């Protein structure tokens, strides 16, 4: 599983951090998304997909 984030779209809502804080964080300086793990293990799939689904800016892309 590959994860991509779009900083142009990100609004810093922090929804992804709540969904999967081992994969996403927010940068201290502007609160925008900080991708910690671009290829998380398959076991994290459900939470990572949930993070993409709840992102209010559709800034997270998940590829198999």
């Amino acid at each position, binding site marked *: 599983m590959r994860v991509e984030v779009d900083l142009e779209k990100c*609004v*810093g*809502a*922090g*929804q992804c*951090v*709540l969904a999967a*804080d081992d994969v996403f*964080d*927010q*940068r*201290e*300086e*502007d*609160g*925008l998304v900080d991708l910690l793990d671009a290829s998380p293990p398959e076991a994290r799939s459900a939470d990572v997909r*949930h993070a993409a*689904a*709840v992102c*209010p*800016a*559709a800034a997270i892309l998940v590829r198999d």
Partner: protein
Amino acid sequence: MSTATERLQLPLPRPNVLELAPLYEVLRREAPITPVTTPAGDPAWLVTRHEEVRLLLGDKRFGRSHPEPERASRITTAAVQDGPTGEYETEEADHARMRRLLTPAFSAKRMRMLADHMDGLVQGYLDRLVAEHDASPDGVVDLHSGLAYPLPVAMICLLLGVPESDHELFGRLSERMANTTIGEEAHQAREEFFRYMIGLVETKRPQLGEDVISDLIRAQSEDASYDYAEMVRLCVGLLFAGHETTVNRIGLGLLFLLTERSRWEALVADPDGRVDAVVEEIMRLGAPGDLGLLRYAREDVSIAGVDIRRGDALVLSINAANRDAEVYSDPEAFNPDRPERTHLGFGHGAHFCIGASLARTELRVVFAALAHRLPGLRLAKDLDQLRVRTTLTGGVAELPVTWRSR
């Protein structure tokens, strides 16, 4: 344009604070974008289906400003979400600057770090309520004034750098500003709130601290394009939204849990394991206020077979969208275990609630602590007898509860 006689009049009357007008179900199916007359008497579009509400919230062709503000439809006589705000020409850039300034202070990580502090506050409020309960002849205490109100107030004061001792003043001003039944007085309250905030800003200016209002004062003084009045409006908005919304959400959440015993018992059986899902279901179903989020079309747009003109007002019904049967199975049921895990309770798109992580953390701490400490909690009045607030943000004015001492 259809004639005034064909338009629905908002608000649609609801049976009680937990249920919505049954007409929403018909509208979602048959007229998901329908012409209405606002409580202020002006024309607008009411959007009720999840798909369109979500789409419009994420579409930059709809904003909070208006090309000709003086001609814009007004929504209510309250002084919050009543009409257009901001400059039409610079709205997107102004909004981006605001988000950039505020987002770090309200990040998920920082809010989580505050959870222990919140829990300490909540335990203190509960200690006081328990003592009051034990000393009271009928054993009834008010969770609204004793818990639902003080926690969000204390937290937003801490984050913004507002003296908590001012809470009676700004609490009263917030209440009047959002009141939909007092006409012009709501706008007077808004002006008083602005004067209070200007006083606070100028008191803080010589000794800026580590808080959000200090950050905004710094940013405004360093940026010639950042208007002073705009900054004050943002500070007022943060202080207002930072407590009004969560106070009401705690109240409605508790009513959902206590009006059907099995819901409360499920949480009590496993507070730490269940609280997150319970909070999300409270965010989905809780419907404070009868209207929705306000937008104005920035250009002509055709959507779902409806032609919306530049400058038209739209009321996006979050309440209706969150109960859409096309998205949620058995949508009216309070079911924290439902498979659908998303909702529009914090909005969507560029204006997504900046305080979402703060509110979630507060709600989780409150409901986990209540379930741990007061498992026998029950309402001391029927739902229909509770005093309801006549404000745009809705909710109840009291939460009389009791429990059997162990």
